[in-house]
C-alpha cells in the first residue's frame, strides 16, 4: 500500500515536471527586416508583443536592402525562410503570384479585424485575385529636400509650396534649379557665359532610369500620363502615351537642355544622389519620406523639405507603403498571424509612430508621428501629408522585376543623352511586350 502511494506520487511529480517543460517550449518566430533606422521602434513593439504572448519568442534578423531580396529568394529555394518579413510592392507581385505568401483574408475575417483604420489605397497594394496578403504598416510620399545654405549663398528665395513645372519652358522649378547650378567660375546656368562642361554644383539631382518612385513617374502622372502599366496586373504598356513621353522628355531636358542635373551615370556609378546632396554638390534632391531619418544625420548645413512642383495636371506623388508578409510554408501560421495582427494594429503602430521614423499606416496616428517630430529638421515635414491628397501607386505585375530592369536601362541611355526618348520608349516596348502577356 505504502509502495503504491509512493509510485503514484512519483508519477504525479514526473507528469508535473513534463508539463512544466512542455509549457516552457515556446514557439520561435523569425522576423526579417531591412531598415536599421526602424530597428529600435520595432524592437520596442515586439518586446511588448512577447510580454503579452509569453508562448511566442520573436527573433529579429536585420538584413540590409542590397542583400535582402537575394536572401529571401534563396531562402525560399531552401525552404528555410523567416516566418514574418517586410514586404515591398516592387517584389510583392512576383512573390504572391508564385504562391510564396500566406493569404490573410481568412484570418482577418475570423478575427473581425477592422481594416477601415488604414488608408484604403495602401490596403489595395496587398490585394491580389480576391485575397489579402498584408495589412499596411506605414506609408511614404515624395517631396524635395533642399539645402538652405546653398540657396542663401546664391541669394535665391527658398522654394514655396505653390511652385510649378511644365514640359515647355520648365516653369519656376527649372528657373530655380538654373540659379543653383554653378560652373567652376561661379556662373549660374542662366549666365550667357555659363560652361555646362565645367559644372561643380547642380541645382537638382537623381535623374536615373531606376529612380522611378521618387523620380520620373511622379512627373508622368503630373503631366496626365497613366503610368507604366494600364492597371494593377494589367497587360497594356502605357508609358508610350504622349503625356508620358513628354514628361520623360522633360526629365531628359533637365540634363541635356537645361543642364541643371547630372546624367544618370554620375549618381548610379559611384556615389548616390543622396551622397552628393549631403556633400553639397546638389541643391535639391527628390526624396521619399523614408529619407527623413537619414536626413537627421546631416550636420554640415541646414535643410528643409518642399512639396513636388505642380505640373500641368496638378501635383501627384507616388504613394507606397510596406507590410508584414507571412511565408506561405511556415509551420507556425497561427503564431505568425498573431504577430502580424499585433504589428499592424493600432497599439503597435502607436509605439512605432512615437519614434518618428516612418508615417504610420493607421490614419488617426499621423499626429502622433508629427508630435514625435516637433522641433526637428525639417520644419516643413507635414508637407508629406499634404502630398497624400493626389497620389499614384506602384505598377504591379508578376514580371515586374524584369520589366523594370529593361525600363531602367533604356531610360538611363536616354537621360544620359545617348538616345532620344521616343527610341527608348520603342526599345522598352519591344522588350517588355512578351513579359506583359
Amino acid at each position, binding site marked *: 500500500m505504502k509502495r503504491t502511494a509512493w509510485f503514484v506520487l512519483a508519477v504525479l511529480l514526473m507528469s508535473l515536471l513534463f508539463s512544466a517543460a512542455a509549457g516552457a517550449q515556446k514557439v520561435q518566430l523569425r522576423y526579417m527586416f531591412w531598415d536599421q533606422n526602424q530597428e529600435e521602434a520595432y524592437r520596442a513593439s515586439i518586446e511588448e508583443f512577447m510580454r503579452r504572448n509569453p508562448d511566442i519568442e520573436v527573433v529579429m534578423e536585420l538584413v540590409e536592402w542590397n542583400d535582402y531580396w537575394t536572401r529571401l529568394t534563396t531562402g525560399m*529555394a531552401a525552404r528555410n525562410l523567416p516566418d514574418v518579413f517586410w514586404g515591398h510592392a516592387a517584389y510583392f507581385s512576383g512573390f504572391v503570384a508564385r504562391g510564396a505568401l500566406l493569404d490573410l483574408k481568412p484570418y482577418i475575417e475570423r478575427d473581425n479585424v477592422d481594416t477601415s483604420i488604414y488608408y484604403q489605397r495602401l490596403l489595395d497594394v496587398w490585394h491580389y485575385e480576391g485575397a489579402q496578403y498584408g495589412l499596411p504598416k506605414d506609408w511614404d510620399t515624395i517631396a524635395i529636400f533642399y539645402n538652405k545654405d546653398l540657396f542663401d549663398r546664391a541669394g535665391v528665395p527658398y522654394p514655396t509650396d505653390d511652385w510649378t513645372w511644365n514640359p515647355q519652358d520648365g516653369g519656376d522649378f527649372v528657373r530655380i534649379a538654373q540659379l543653383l547650378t554653378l560652373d567652376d567660375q561661379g556662373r549660374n546656368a542662366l549666365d550667357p557665359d555659363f560652361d555646362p*562642361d565645367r559644372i561643380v554644383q547642380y541645382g537638382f539631382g537623381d535623374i536615373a532610369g531606376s529612380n522611378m518612385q521618387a523620380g520620373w513617374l511622379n512627373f508622368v502622372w503630373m503631366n496626365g500620363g497613366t503610368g507604366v502599366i494600364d492597371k494593377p496586373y494589367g497587360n497594356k504598356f502605357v508609358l508610350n502615351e504622349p503625356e508620358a513621353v513628354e514628361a520623360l522628355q522633360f526629365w531628359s531636358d533637365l540634363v541635356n537642355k537645361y543642364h541643371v542635373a547630372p*546624367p544618370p*551615370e554620375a549618381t548610379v556609378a559611384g556615389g548616390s544622389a543622396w551622397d552628393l546632396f549631403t556633400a553639397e554638390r546638389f541643391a535639391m534632391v527628390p526624396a521619399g519620406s523614408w529619407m527623413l531619418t537619414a536626413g537627421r544625420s546631416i550636420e554640415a548645413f541646414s535643410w528643409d523639405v518642399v512639396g513636388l512642383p505642380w505640373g500641368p495636371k496638378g501635383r501627384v506623388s507616388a504613394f507606397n507603403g510596406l507590410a508584414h508578409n507571412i511565408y506561405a510554408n511556415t509551420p507556425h501560421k497561427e503564431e505568425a498571424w498573431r504577430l502580424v495582427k499585433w504589428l499592424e494594429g493600432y497599439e503597435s503602430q502607436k509605439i512605432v509612430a512615437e519614434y518618428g521614423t516612418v508615417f504610420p499606416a493607421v490614419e488617426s496616428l499621423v499626429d502622433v508621428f508629427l508630435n514625435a517630430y516637433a522641433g526637428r529638421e525639417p520644419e516643413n515635414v507635414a508637407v508629406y501629408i499634404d502630398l497624400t491628397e493626389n497620389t499614384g501607386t506602384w505598377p504591379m505585375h508578376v*514580371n515586374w522585376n524584369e520589366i523594370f*530592369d529593361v525600363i531602367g536601362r533604356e531610360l*538611363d541611355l536616354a537621360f544620359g543623352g545617348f538616345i532620344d526618348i521616343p527610341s527608348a520608349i520603342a526599345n522598352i516596348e519591344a522588350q517588355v511586350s512578351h513579359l506583359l502577356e
Partner: protein
Amino acid sequence: MWRKRRFRQEAIAGYLFVAPNLIGFLVFQLIPIVAAVGLSFTAWDLINDPQWVGLANYRTLLKDPVFRLSLQKTFLFVIINVPLQSVLALIIAVLLNQNIRFQNLLRTLFIVPWVSMSVAVGLTWTWIFNSQFGIINQILQRLGMQRIPWLASQDWALPSVIAVNIWQYLGFHIIVFLTGLQLIPREVTEAAIVDGASAWTRFWRITIPLVSPILFYDLIVNMIGTFQIFDLPFAMTNGGPGNATRVYNLYLYQKGFQFLRMGEATAMAVILFLLIVATSVLFFRIIGRRINYDIT
C-alpha cells in the same frame, strides 16, 4: 602476402590523404554541377518545385536577344582581357626578376589590388571614373582636355571595366610568371651571356621558349576565369549603360535571383561550361602542341 598487405595499407593511407579534397570536390563541385545540368531541363522559380520542361529553357535562350548580347560582351571581354593581361604580366615579371631597386616594394604594389575585395575595388573606380566628379576627368579638364565618359557611354564602359580588371588581377599573373622564371636554369642564361647574346636576344631565344609552358598555363587559366567574369561589371556598372557591360554571368545571376527563372539560369551555366571546355580543347589543339615542355 606481407607485401600485399603493405600495399593495401599504403593505398588506404593514400585515399585518406586525398579524402578531404575529394569530399570537398564532391560536395561543392560535382554534385552542384550534376544538379545544375538536371535543373536546366526544368522550370524553377525557387518558390515552387521544379517542373520538367525538356529543352524549353535552351530554346528560350536561343531566342533571347539579351542572351546573345551577353555572350558577345563576354567573348569581347575575353579576347581583349586575356592576351593583354597575360602579356603585360609576363613583361612586368621579367622586369621584376632583374636585380632592381625596390623589388619587394614593387612586387607588393602589384599584388595588393589582387588581394583586395573586388566590390570595394569596383566602387572605388566608379568614383575615379565618375564623369562629373571623378578625379581623372578633373585632371583632364585642368590640362585643357575634354571629359571622357568612362562609364557613361556605351563605347567606353566595356574598355573601362576591362582596364580595371586587367589592373586588379595583374598581380596573380605576375606571380605565376615569376615562378616560371625561377625555373629557368641559371647555366642556360649564363652560357648565353658568355656567347655574347644581348638582353633582347636572351628574352626571345631563352626566356620565351623556356617559360612557354607557364605562359600557356596562364593563358588557359586566364581564359577560364575571364569567361566567368562577374564581380567588376556587377559592382561598377551593373551591366550598364544599357547593356554595354552586361556580361554572361551577370545576366545569369539576374535571371536566377532577380527574375526567378532558375531553370534558364542553370541552362546558361551549362552552356557556359560547354563553351569553356570547347575553347580549352581548341587552345590545347592549336597552341598546346607547340609548347616546349623540356625545360632542362
